[in-house]
């Protein structure tokens, strides 16, 4: 970070009105529809939503690895410290990717090259971004291994010699090796079992605080969000439906979809035989409903929800909801 350390709280990344579609065989899948979000330095933002809601697509759009075709960014801005990543020439983008923004992938089993030693894979990202000798890159890689709790003398071992949780630590070490300013964690614990999940999440949080890295944490696990996020964006059918601080969201959820999500969570205290699921299925992204895309499943849906655009309301300070039916002081 040559341009001097920015203070915690400064705006780091700002995504404005991002729209991404996938086209295949004539059909157009609207994966992301006008998403806007801000991440401050040191902040960790949780992105919560069902499978297929467009969470991963947002992350890939930010780091610029969406496969084109079939993906296409139709609209929007992704501003990282005053430069729009979508307009950046590939040459400049390469300085950002892996260095300023890095990504933790979902499945550690396939995110590592089986033919390279784990140390070499960490050293690779170091030597790609910093002008260091091979030896220095190696030392840095060992340091990173120690940092994620793997003894440095396992540098020369291959991915198959590690367990799932340790592989994910290696993936995290790769992501953090260049001190990125923004970490995109794409469901980092989905492929791991519960105890390892807790360890890995704790490690990510500790390292994130220690390095003062901002994080976009993609997950569908509200427990993980409660554990390690400052703010939360709930995403449904490629749109952010509710955006609030963690406390506001958990104590005072406003959007019917968020309410539905909490309703589907088992409670440790109550004795309920059946959970209350959200009725219906997520909409077909090739054919999103008119108006609010949640209205066919929403029990509060009214006539006005079925057509036209849905207002973005601020129900309390810094607590935004995308809904007609929520009562609030002012519209934004």
């Amino acid at each position, binding site marked *: 970070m040559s341009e001097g350390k920015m203070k915690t709280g400064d705006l780091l990344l700002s995504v404005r009105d991002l729209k991404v579609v996938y086209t295949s065989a004539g059909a157009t899948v609207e994966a992301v529809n006008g998403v806007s979000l801000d991440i401050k330095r040191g902040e960790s933002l949780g992105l919560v939503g069902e499978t297929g809601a467009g969470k991963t697509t947002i992350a890939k759009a930010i780091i610029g690895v969406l496969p084109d075709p079939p993906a296409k960014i139709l609209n929007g801005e992704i501003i990282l410290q005053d430069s729009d990543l979508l307009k950046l020439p590939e040459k400049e983008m390469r300085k950002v*990717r892996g260095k300023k923004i890095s990504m933790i992938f979902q499945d550690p089993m396939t995110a590592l090259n*089986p*033919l390279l030693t784990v*140390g070499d894979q960490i050293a690779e990202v170091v030597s790609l971004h910093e002008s260091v000798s091979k030896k220095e890159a190696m030392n840095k890689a060992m340091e990173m291994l120690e940092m994620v*709790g793997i003894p440095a*003398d396992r540098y020369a071992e*291959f991915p198959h010699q590690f367990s799932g949780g340790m592989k994910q630590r290696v993936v995290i070490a790769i992501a953090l090796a260049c001190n990125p300013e923004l970490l995109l964690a794409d469901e980092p614990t989905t492929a791991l079992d519960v105890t390892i999940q807790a360890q890995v999440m*704790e490690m990510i949080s500790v*390292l994130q605080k220690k390095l003062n890295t901002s994080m976009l944490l993609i997950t569908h696990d509200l427990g993980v969000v409660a554990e390690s996020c400052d703010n939360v964006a709930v995403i449904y059918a490629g749109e952010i439906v509710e955006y609030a601080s963690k406390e506001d969201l958990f104590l005072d959820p406003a959007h019917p979809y968020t309410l539905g999500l909490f309703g589907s969570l088992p409670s440790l205290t109550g004795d309920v035989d059946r959970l209350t699921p959200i009725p219906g299925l997520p909409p077909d992204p090739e054919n999103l409903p008119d108006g609010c895309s949640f209205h066919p499943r929403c029990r509060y849906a009214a006539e006005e929800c079925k057509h036209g655009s849905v207002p973005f309301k601020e129900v309390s300070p810094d607590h935004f909801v995308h809904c007609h039916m929520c009562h609030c002081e002012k519209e934004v």
Partner: protein
Amino acid sequence: MNLQKETKAPGGQPAKRKSMNAMVLRRMKNNKMAMAGLFILTFIMLVAIFGPLIAPYSATKTDLLHTYSLPSLQHPFGTDELGRDIMSRLIIGSRASLAIGLISMAGASVIGIMLGSLCGYFGGKVDTVIMRFMDIFQALPPLILAIAICAALGPGLNNCILAITISNIPSFVRMTRASVLNIRRMEYLEAATAINCSTSRIIAKHILPNALSPLIVQLTMGVATAIISASAMSFIGLGVQPPNPEWGAMLSAGRGYIRNYPHMVTFSGTMIMITVLSLNMLGDGLRDALDPKLKD
């Protein structure tokens, strides 16, 4: 796990750093079959290189008084229909045969792997164009294609090598493409893009090493086929020109006398078999050594 623990600088001994190459070498050494293959192949190559020095007779000098002699002390492998010493012919002929087998396969694999990885990686138009060309090549049986090329360019060893190279490219392209397509879906490629590897680096460092095992087997088998194809070309007068010896040509020349004088085909056939076998053993061992998942 203790995160608060200061990350100690791991200086001093840089772990037990076994590089991939060192590991492959060590594993090859432990693989007896592979070492045997390597040994035999080295021996055959040395014989080919120093052929003129060690051949007991001239490979082309005829001796019409001693035609069809069975193996004896004078002629360890016997003589052929013109009285030429078969052992000398095999020794000299190894040069042409090995050149055809090894050079044509090396050429075909390098070109084939390059085109195949382009197809598999980029897909789309690049893929379609290259693969349709390969379809055209593959519509003709490889031997017919080689004969056509040789006939167009004129007979001779070099053109024969070229013809066999070209006719073998499509199978390498196809095989590489299939392998690459498989690996293309892996998340570690996405991860490599996300840490900013260039396309060429991704192909060279992350894709090809993972796609190599089926290709190595194909390569070693291909050498055998190439030697046999070369014999067919020599047989119809498009390959190595008589009286120069070449294993395949000797095999097909001896074919007519197989009932009365089997030694004429036995020795040349055995040489081809030994060469191919040693290459296969070496290739198998190499493939195993290159896969870190297999235990030592």
